[in-house]
């Protein structure tokens, strides 16, 4: 009897483990490649939002990476090849009490790779501010959409802070 209970518990444990792996795989298949790359880093809070709403008419997939403290913020920006002058601008803006938002294009799913001059290259829009130590990676479909998103988020930061 005791042996049967032990076998039952082992069976339930294995079943739970298999079920957890299946759920985790299903979750990861519905998030962005950027999310998958950074989700395991304990120093970062990573989120993926499908169909994030911008204003009344635009929805876009976005991955957000929030750094937990100011010390790690500049380290993270350098790791995605943000220009040192941009980092300096944001630092100065913070000291003066100004609001500062930076934007640039990056190669799709690779926020650390600057685009080349190829016209058919697929791009993401990255947007970040020291105000909340967050980098947004928007999966944009066109430059027009990128402009609308950038305008919206800049105004949002200016109004909020």
């Amino acid at each position, binding site marked *: 009897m005791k042996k049967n209970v032990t076998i039952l518990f082992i069976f339930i444990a294995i079943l739970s483990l298999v079920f957890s792996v299946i759920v985790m795989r299903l979750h990861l298949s519905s998030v962005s490649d950027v999310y998958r790359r950074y989700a395991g880093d304990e120093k970062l809070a990573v989120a993926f939002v499908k169909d994030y709403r911008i204003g009344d008419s635009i929805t876009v997939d976005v991955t957000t990476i929030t750094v937990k403290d100011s010390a790690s913020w500049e380290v993270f920006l350098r790791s995605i090849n*943000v*220009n040192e*002058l*941009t980092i300096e*601008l*944001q630092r100065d*803006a913070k000291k*003066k*009490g*100004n*609001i*500062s*938002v*930076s*934007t*640039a*294009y990056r190669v799709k799913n690779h926020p650390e790779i*600057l*685009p080349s*001059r190829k016209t058919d290259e697929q791009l993401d*829009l990255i947007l970040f501010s020291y105000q909340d130590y967050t980098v947004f990676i928007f999966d944009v479909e066109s*430059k027009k959409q*990128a*402009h609308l998103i*950038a*305008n919206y988020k*800049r*105004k949002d930061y*200016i109004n909020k802070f």
Partner: protein
Amino acid sequence: MKSKFKPIVMLAAFCFVAISCQKETVVDTDTAFHLQQNAFVRCINYNIDDVSFNVTIFGEHNWQLFLDEMIALTQNGHKVTIRRSDVSASNDKSRNVVVFETTNETEAHKWCNEMIDKGYEVTMTYDPRTGKYTCTAIGPDRTDSQSDTIS
């Protein structure tokens, strides 16, 4: 007709025809203002290495061409400053950086987006005390840029 009046009449007729043949259209100031608001017209004062120029640019396509030329000059080490009535722009000669300043929010977004499309990393800074927007566009390394020469 008496002969002494004939030259006067001929002169008057000549003047009448000359004036009628002029094709210049004069619009009133309200119409001119309306045209400028709705058509794409920019009156620019710009400096290249401390030499001042004035230009009026018609059409957004021509504006883009002008901007491309200015950027090419900055990439070749020239100091460029661009001014409109409410927008000023200048570059840091030692680096591939272009700076625009304005108190007009719409213009600020437009400038920033134009420079992002050209491959720059752009920071918009807003000073709540003065209401001024500064767009700082940082380009790729000089070694990556095209070596256009302006004749």
